[in-house]
């Protein structure tokens, strides 16, 4: 009864509501206008490290562009693309949107469009005979600049064939083609036949789904253990095989793969190189004696940055790298011109920003030459995809010279290059997606064609 008496009559009630609404109208206006002013006066970014791209630039005005509608569209695009604090705001929104569901059994799954086909049992087939060209390696002309205009870019990240996140670790589903594996093996066998004086090494690097798939998916797709074994069986005598699959298997409880990136960690790289150096009778790198261990928290890798796995924003990881204590010189060449672009002394790590995996030797950008003081008389050329980028700091312990060559961007004559540089060893270091996928044709183009 008392409550009813205390109730306000309708006009009074309306006044209260009116007052509240007015406050919010002013607040809305404040948000709109302050937003408008801030977006006008704050400095706009020109590059997005997260997206690895230049952001839009202010369009230049012309009547014809205005007439075609291009100017206004470009102006709007510039405005939207270069919002101040873009990266921070993007991460905040990703964090919010990451709560759009649950991780059933701790699993997130992102398989675009169709589910990938479960690979049918492919016949093993036979390896074609190794052929030798009319001219031998010594007779081919010296290395020519690449004719390619292809640059390292993020296109490789668009090949999302299915990503699973399990226990806060993202990984790609794997399947391989035996025909591609045969191309890969044929390439190594051909190289070894044509240049028998070289030590040819094969390093098949499994992707992380080889070890960490959730039980419900394990065995459903390609079997990397089987495929590694298949490749090994195809390699002719004289080609050395670094059994990375089994080496890493012993360390699955350690951080041998990155959780937010499709690459392995530098620790995984270390174990693989350690195994190779043992086989090659070269000085084995020692993490504590030969390297300074550094780390950075809060890393988000390619799965978050390029594969659009927004939920990973909640699981940043600590990235660890190992900087050599010993001395060395690096020279970086452009793939287009084969001219020196940069040099550095005792420094192989740059770009201290995400994705951290790319910090070594500018990622895939340059053909890299490392000169060390190992004095073993051994020189190695590494033909690699991005998984091979991180080998150089560890190989530097045992090789006098290291040439790091991206098989996707190098368009010169590989045989002439190897002969010209006087290498003693050639290492093919690439992930199973490359060796068992269409990218194995890069090897074939370099060494068989």
């Amino acid at each position, binding site marked *: 009864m008392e*409550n009813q008496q205390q*109730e*306000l009559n309708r006009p*009074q*009630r309306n006044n*209260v*509501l*009116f007052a*509240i*609404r*007015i*406050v*919010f*109208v002013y*607040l*809305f*206006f404040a*948000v*709109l*206008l302050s*937003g*408008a002013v801030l*977006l*006008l006066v704050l400095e706009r970014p020109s590059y997005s490290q997260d997206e690895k791209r230049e952001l839009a630039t202010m369009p230049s005005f012309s009547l014809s562009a*205005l*007439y075609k*509608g291009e100017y*206004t*569209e470009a*102006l*709007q695009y510039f*405005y*939207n693309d270069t*919002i101040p604090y*873009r990266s921070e*705001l*993007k991460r*905040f*929104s*990703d964090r*919010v*949107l990451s709560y*759009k*569901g*649950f991780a*059933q*059994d701790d*699993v*997130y*799954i*992102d*398989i*675009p*469009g*169709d*589910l990938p*086909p479960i690979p049918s049992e492919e016949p093993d087939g036979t390896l074609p005979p190794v052929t030798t060209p009319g001219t031998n390696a010594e007779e081919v002309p010296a290395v020519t600049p690449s004719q390619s205009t292809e640059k390292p870019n993020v296109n490789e990240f668009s090949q999302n064939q299915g990503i699973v996140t399990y226990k806060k670790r993202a990984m790609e589903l794997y399947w391989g083609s035996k025909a591609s594996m045969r191309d890969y093996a044929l390439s190594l066998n051909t190289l070894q036949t044509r240049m028998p004086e070289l030590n040819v090494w094969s390093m098949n690097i499994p992707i992380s789904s080889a070890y960490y798939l959730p039980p*419900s998916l394990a065995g*459903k797709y390609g079997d990397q253990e089987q495929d590694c074994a298949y490749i090994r069986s195809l390699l002719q005598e004289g080609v050395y095989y670094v059994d990375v699959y089994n080496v890493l298997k012993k360390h699955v409880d350690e951080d041998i793969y990155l959780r937010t990136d499709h690459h392995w960690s530098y620790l995984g790289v270390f174990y693989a190189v350690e195994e190779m150096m043992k086989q090659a009778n070269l000085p084995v790198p020692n993490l504590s004696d030969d390297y300074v261990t550094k780390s950075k928290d809060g890393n988000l890798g390619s799965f978050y940055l390029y594969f659009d796995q927004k*939920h990973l924003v909640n699981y940043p990881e600590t990235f660890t790298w190992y900087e050599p204590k010993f001395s060395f010189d690096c020279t970086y060449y452009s793939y287009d011109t084969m001219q020196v672009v940069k040099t550095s002394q005792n420094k192989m790590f740059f770009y201290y920003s995400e994705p951290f995996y790319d910090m070594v030797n500018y990622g895939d950008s340059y053909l890299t030459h490392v000169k060390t003081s190992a004095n073993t008389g051994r020189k190695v050329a590494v033909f690699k995809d991005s998984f091979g980028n991180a080998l150089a700091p560890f190989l530097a312990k045992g090789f006098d010279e290291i040439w790091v060559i991206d098989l996707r961007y190098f368009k010169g004559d590989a045989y002439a290059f190897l002969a010209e540089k006087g290498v003693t060893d050639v290492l093919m270091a690439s992930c199973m997606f490359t060796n068992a996928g269409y990218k194995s044709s890069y090897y074939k183009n370099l060494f068989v064609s």
Partner: protein
Amino acid sequence: MNFSNLFFLYAFLPATLLLYYLIPNIHYRNAVLIFVSLIFYAWGNPTMVLLLLLVCIVNYFLGRGIGAAPGMKKGKLFLSVGLVLNIGLLFVYKYLAFFLETVNLLPKVSLPIPNIIMPLGLSFFTFRIISYLLDVYWEKVSAERSFPVFLLFVSLFPCTVAGPIVRYQTIFKCLHSRKHSREDLWYGFMRLSVGLGKKVILADQLYMVTEHYFSGSLQNLSVAEAWFALLVYTMYVYFDFSGYSDMAIGIARLFGFRFEENFRYPFVCTTISEFWQRWHISLGSFFRDYLLYVPIFGKMRIYGGLFLVWFSTGLWHGASWNYVIWGLYFGLFILLETKIGKKKMKKIPVFIRHIYTKFVIALGFGIFYFTDLSRMGVFFKCLFGLDGNGLIHEFSSVYMMNHLILVLISLLCIFPWVPFFKKKLERHTATIAVGECVCGILLLALFILSSIILVSSTNQPFLYTQF
């Protein structure tokens, strides 16, 4: 330009509001609105604004002609010219290529297909003009004397691009004189925030889930996935379009215009007829008022009218046969319900009516999505398990669970909880005051959050801008 765009929200809209409210006189304010509306329309394709102006000029004089002789032969002539011109314009820009493609299906016919770019919002503004001409002819409204006011009616930016189909009789008073209360501003911001949230937080995210399933070959979809995808797509269309309508209504209110509702919680319907009274109301009422009773079918008027309305409703949505099938599909159920009768329909238990309507609506949106009829066939086979993919894949549930909160929130948002709670709160001043404060804070947060999400999201244009 569209509304869910940072440039629009933080440059175009504040500048327009400032300019508008700094000017006291209604005529100058109308001039400001015409100016910004033409800029808005011309943004991506300035040449099309000339077409809009030409359409306005022609129809202004036609309207005056009809108004001078309503119901008379002269008026009828002007009306006929107006209808032929406007429908002809729509036909040429939107349907000519489709028509020729269809004709080319005939043996030994191979007509060249013109590549015509459809002006933005053509379907919406031609329908608004047609309704105006008919209303003038039927003397429901007087012909507009002022050309600037008529130009404002046709070009008013909140409803030019993707509706709603606001009729002249709804806003003619506002076009001439309107009051601007702070309540209007409150309401405008409220609807703007809700619409933006629906679009950015729900529709755009649901769209990604839809594309996850629909963008591939569909061959591997299990029954559960197909139904899940259909549910998500149905909600996506609703939030995308109703979000746009909310924003249009809200923005218009900021400038003192009151538009009628375009969506009234369509999924609470218990019959398909009711669904269409709640879904895209401005389009449904347009066809009901101007097309249903066209006396061209003689004794078959009911069937003929229904066929015409639903054929046109389908075709209006796009120049593709799937839209026609979609329209006729709904027409069929409405005919069925008409035959059963309202009383008998009401005797059917409510939950069965709910299941029936949601089933029919969802299947309808399956037709709506696939412009490729062969893909539509594949999808429907998956939907009913005729493709042998089984009920559910081993890990189908994982992806569904990964998006479950989004889907549940979307499901919650399609029901009228807000009016329900508002009614409950209205009993006491204290509760309604607290409710209003909470509502204001939530709407502000929604607006800011949606803006932040827009920074990183790929800008998805509104689905209905293509119509």
